[in-house]
């Protein structure tokens, strides 16, 4: 039976069920002795069986459900103090009679809670306000924790994912922070490393999928060595993985489908295995379909193709690849890194004839970087997510402060009742229980409602989240979230009860109450707790406001950056020409020209151009160049510069300013023209104070291929909006890039090209653009139709996302804080009605009364503001790298949020003051 298991299932069974339910069960069943132990073992044994029958995901679900059903019964039996899971009775077989501790019994507790609920039902307004306030805060926590749990805490979907590391390089000597790995290096690593169990090399690519009745599609594919799936510990759900032959140069052409493409395009038809499809115009046999939960290196990869490289003879200098490795059990990442660094030191021995590579290696002080795969995938999200969780916790604290205030009002009304009970002999604990029962009733209602709101929030978030958020498809509410919300509910219950319990059951207060016989104790003393709450609330709100203010400022700084081009009115889309249909430079150039001509003729299109990639598309290329006027000395490295290819009219279409000279790409008639355009950064770097037009740059090596600079354009933020532009060379669309290790002998054929069209209403052009492409070649799929505005917005997604979340939290905090302040001042006015009436009867002016009351509230807020500013000064530093061109203690932001919160506090104090000054003295005095 075991022999039937696929390796993935084997791993699922060997890994055993989730730890959390098993731990909970072990803990709950411990009092049962051997019987409890055997139940845990039974479930484990059955889990292994379900893994075999239905796969590890179904098994995990099964195990959770059954564990929960046992937990529920156990808790019920324990609470009821009888039944088979109540260990106190029979105690399993041990025969040891259970001890019966005198504690808060269940019946008493339920009695108290029932009593509390009845009380809350009578005070409906209060109950609704309290539950809603808390539920909003719990919902915020639920949403943030759900995302954090799924993205950061849960292991990746690959088997034993903790042992997976991503191998990359760094070259600090040349200022390169981190880049990929080359097939040559990977090969050496693989040969030499003793700490790596298995590894895979891969590179992402977009391809055209055609060859059946469905419309041609442009989709993301992953090219990898045949060892990748084994490294990840996952195998196709259907069919098989790649063979060694398929992964060799000229081997049989094979493809593996992702589950989603199999479902979407082929209707989940299992007979797809063995059929052939057209990938980039070439036939490939479908040999497998991956499981539904599998996506590597991210969700959305639709096809898996063998890399087909002969690694042993591959270049050591082509760093555009990635490698993932499964380290041996017991090995650490540091050991792996040390071993790889030792290998790098020996690289010149392996590649004696690669002078460029050796020079690069030495000058750059090449070193290996190994980081856990999970960190590589979700590392960027770590800081924002923990920050948001902290923010949500602050919001919850503010909500608790608010409700505690309401709670105190109610509790004070019961003070006399409490005093009586105390006099009759009820201890402090017993008295506190009443509060705890009420706070539990509130917290449970709020926890339940908050959970529901949170679930809705999570669903909404998953639908609307920006693309590029890793592991988004895995975000969902699971048992960890339930446990978290349950724990939160408990904390809320305790927080709510603790202040009234201390305040109202202290012997001093009780003595006072019973003596005076009324519920009015000394006003000042009684208010202190509530005043402290207002101060805390204001301070917390200020911290949140400061954080969101700083993010807002970062965002507006980013928005106001000049990217170097004019994104408004530009529509872009991407096309890739299959080599089968467009074999040479001539045919590619001909298509580009015809398509551009056709696009320009479309009504509503003012200009059209194209480039290998548009700015902010995150896929620029860099290589070594020779500058004729600045030859690199012996042992010196040539500069590594970014370059791309552009068509004629590209600069005009993108609104990139031409500084001097002519700035044009090339049409097909100019294939052999050696003209190039550089941006101002390059111009000033190599020809400061001069006009670079007429000077030449070219390939490195013995016999350089020179290109004459014909124009200079404005610099563009090409990779990320927040990164300073660092130079770009623009080659004509069809031209050989003079790279040192260029494998191409002839002109570089740019097969994948992003077209840009400018018009007044770019989004309305997409239909016409599709038709234009279809008219020219119906088999060409169009990908990534986007306005340039969208691309700019996407490049700011992390900032805007964090900002939005913080602003929402701060708005909630502001709202809750204002309500809290207003509530306390209003209460104060009610308490002092008689005094105010008396003052007014004695001739105090309305204005004086207003000022007196308002000051009382505003003073508290002012203290809170000061405390908040001090706290925020320290805490906003946590925002760190999320800020752009904004200091964590930006004075302007701090001043603005302090003024905003101060203003709100003023209104919240002034409104009740206004009411106080309008009191009719005669009536207030009569009332007493």
């Amino acid at each position, binding site marked *: 039976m075991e022999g039937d298991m696929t390796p993935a299932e084997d791993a699922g069974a060997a890994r055993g069920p989730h730890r959390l339910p098993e731990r909970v069960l072990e803990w709950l069943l411990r009092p049962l002795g051997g019987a409890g132990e*055997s139940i845990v073992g*039974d479930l484990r044994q*059955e889990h292994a*069986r379900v893994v075999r029958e239905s796969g590890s995901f179904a098994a995990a679900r099964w195990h959770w459900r059954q*564990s929960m*059903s046992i937990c529920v*019964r156990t808790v019920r039996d324990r609470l009821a103090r009888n*039944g*088979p899971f109540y260990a106190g009775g029979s105690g399993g077989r041990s025969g040891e009679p259970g001890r019966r501790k005198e504690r808060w019994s269940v019946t008493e507790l339920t009695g108290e809670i029932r009593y509390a609920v009845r009380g809350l039902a009578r005070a409906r307004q209060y109950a609704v306000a309290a539950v809603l306030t808390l539920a909003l805060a719990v919902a915020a926590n639920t949403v943030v924790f759900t995302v954090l749990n799924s993205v950061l805490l849960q292991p990746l979907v690959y088997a034993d994912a903790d042992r997976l590391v991503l191998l990359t390089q760094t070259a600090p000597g040349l200022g390169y922070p981190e880049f990929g790995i080359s097939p040559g290096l990977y090969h050496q690593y693989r040969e030499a490393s003793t700490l790596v169990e298995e590894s895979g090399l891969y590179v992402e690519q977009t391809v055209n999928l055609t060859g059946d009745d469905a419309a041609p599609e442009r989709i993301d594919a992953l090219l990898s060595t045949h060892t990748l799936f084994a490294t990840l510990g996952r195998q196709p759900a259907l069919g098989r993985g790649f063979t060694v032959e398929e992964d060799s140069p000229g081997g049989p052409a094979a493809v593996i489908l992702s589950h989603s493409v199999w479902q979407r395009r082929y209707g989940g038809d299992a007979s797809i295995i063995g059929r052939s499809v057209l990938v980039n115009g070439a036939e490939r046999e479908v040999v497998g379909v991956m499981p539904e939960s599998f996506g590597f290196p991210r969700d959305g990869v639709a096809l898996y193709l063998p890399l087909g490289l002969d690694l042993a003879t591959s270049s050591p200098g082509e760093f555009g690849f990635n490698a993932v490795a499964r380290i041996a059990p017991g090995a650490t990442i540091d050991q792996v890194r040390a071993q790889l660094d030792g290998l790098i030191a020996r690289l010149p021995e392996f590649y004696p004839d690669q002078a460029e590579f050796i020079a690069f290696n030495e000058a750059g002080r090449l070193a290996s970087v190994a980081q856990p795969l999970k960190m590589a995938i979700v590392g960027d999200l770590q800081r924002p997510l923990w920050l948001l969780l902290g923010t949500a916790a602050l919001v919850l604290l503010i909500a608790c402060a608010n409700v505690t205030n309401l709670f105190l009002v109610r509790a004070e009304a019961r003070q006399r009742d409490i005093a009586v009970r105390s006099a009759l002999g009820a201890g402090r604990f017993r008295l506190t229980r009443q509060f705890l029962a009420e706070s539990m009733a509130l917290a449970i209602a709020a926890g339940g409602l908050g959970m529901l709101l949170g679930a809705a929030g999570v669903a909404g978030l998953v639908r609307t989240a920006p693309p590029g958020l890793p592991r988004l498809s895995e975000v969902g509410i699971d048992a960890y979230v339930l446990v978290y919300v349950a724990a939160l509910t408990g904390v809320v219950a305790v927080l709510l009860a603790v202040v009234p319990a201390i305040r109202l059951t202290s012997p001093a207060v009780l003595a006072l109450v019973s003596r005076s016989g009324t519920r009015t104790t000394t006003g000042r003393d009684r208010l202190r707790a509530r005043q402290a709450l207002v101060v805390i609330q204001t301070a917390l709100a200020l911290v949140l406001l400061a954080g969101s203010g700083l993010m807002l400022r970062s965002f507006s700084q980013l928005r106001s950056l000049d990217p170097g081009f004019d994104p408004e009115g530009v529509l872009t889309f991407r096309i890739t020409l299959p080599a089968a249909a467009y074999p040479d430079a001539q045919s590619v150039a001909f298509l580009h020209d015809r398509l551009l001509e056709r696009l320009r003729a479309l009504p509503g299109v003012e200009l059209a151009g194209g480039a290998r990639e548009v700015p902010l598309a995150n896929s620029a290329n860099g290589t070594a160049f020779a500058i004729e006027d600045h030859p690199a000395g012996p042992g010196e490295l040539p500069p590594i510069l970014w370059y791309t290819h552009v068509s004629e009219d590209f600069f005009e279409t993108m609104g990139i300013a031409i500084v001097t000279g002519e700035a044009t790409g090339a049409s097909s008639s100019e294939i052999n023209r050696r003209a190039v355009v550089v941006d101002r950064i390059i111009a000033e770097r190599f020809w400061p104070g001069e006009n670079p037009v007429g000077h030449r740059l070219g390939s490195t090596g013995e016999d350089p291929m020179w290109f004459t600079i014909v124009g200079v354009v404005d610099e563009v933020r090409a990779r990320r909006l927040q990164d300073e532009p660092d130079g770009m060379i623009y080659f004509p669309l069809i031209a050989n890039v003079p790279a040192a290790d260029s494998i191409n002998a002839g002109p570089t054929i740019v097969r994948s090209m992003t077209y840009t069209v400018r018009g007044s209403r770019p989004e309305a052009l997409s239909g016409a653009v599709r038709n234009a492409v279809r008219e020219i070649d119906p088999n060409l799929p169009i990908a990534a139709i986007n306005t340039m505005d969208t691309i700019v917005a996407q490049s700011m997604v992390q900032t805007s996302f964090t900002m939005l979340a913080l602003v929402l939290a701060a708005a909630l905090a502001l709202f809750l804080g204002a309500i809290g302040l207003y509530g306390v001042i209003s209460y104060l006015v009610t308490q002092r009605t008689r005094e105010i009436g008396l003052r007014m009867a004695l001739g105090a002016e309305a204005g004086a009364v207003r000022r007196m009351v308002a000051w009382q509230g505003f003073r508290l807020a002012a203290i809170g503001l000061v405390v908040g500013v001090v706290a925020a000064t320290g805490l906003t530093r946590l925002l760190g790298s999320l800020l752009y061109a904004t200091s964590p203690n930006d004075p302007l932001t701090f001043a603005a949020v302090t003024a905003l919160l101060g203003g709100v506090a003023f209104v919240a104090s002034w409104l009740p003051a206004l009411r106080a000054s309008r009191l009719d003295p005669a009536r207030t005095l009569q009332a007493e």
Partner: protein
Amino acid sequence: MTRDFSLGEFEQMLMLAILQLGPDSHGPDIAQYLETAVDRPVSRGALYATLGRLEEKGYLRWQLEEPDAQRGGHRKRRFELTGPGVAALRTYRAALLELWSGLEGVLGSEGA
């Protein structure tokens, strides 16, 4: 002497399953037997609660066996019925047979 009819439906099923399985009566076997033989979904919570209740009633007993690899080092319980347990089943069966007799015409026989 009045007869004791304190056996629930699920309790009877469990006891019968234990008799059927004989020396293989471990928790997972019992659950799977019921799930396959009578097509009844068995919540593990109900399973172990009911086994515990039967033990409290004195109808079954168990002993611990050494664990195997799949169980994460946890020992195993093998269940068997006690004398009173078998007696209770017998009583129940007699009562049911008596109640069923002569009703085939009304309730239909098997397969009808």
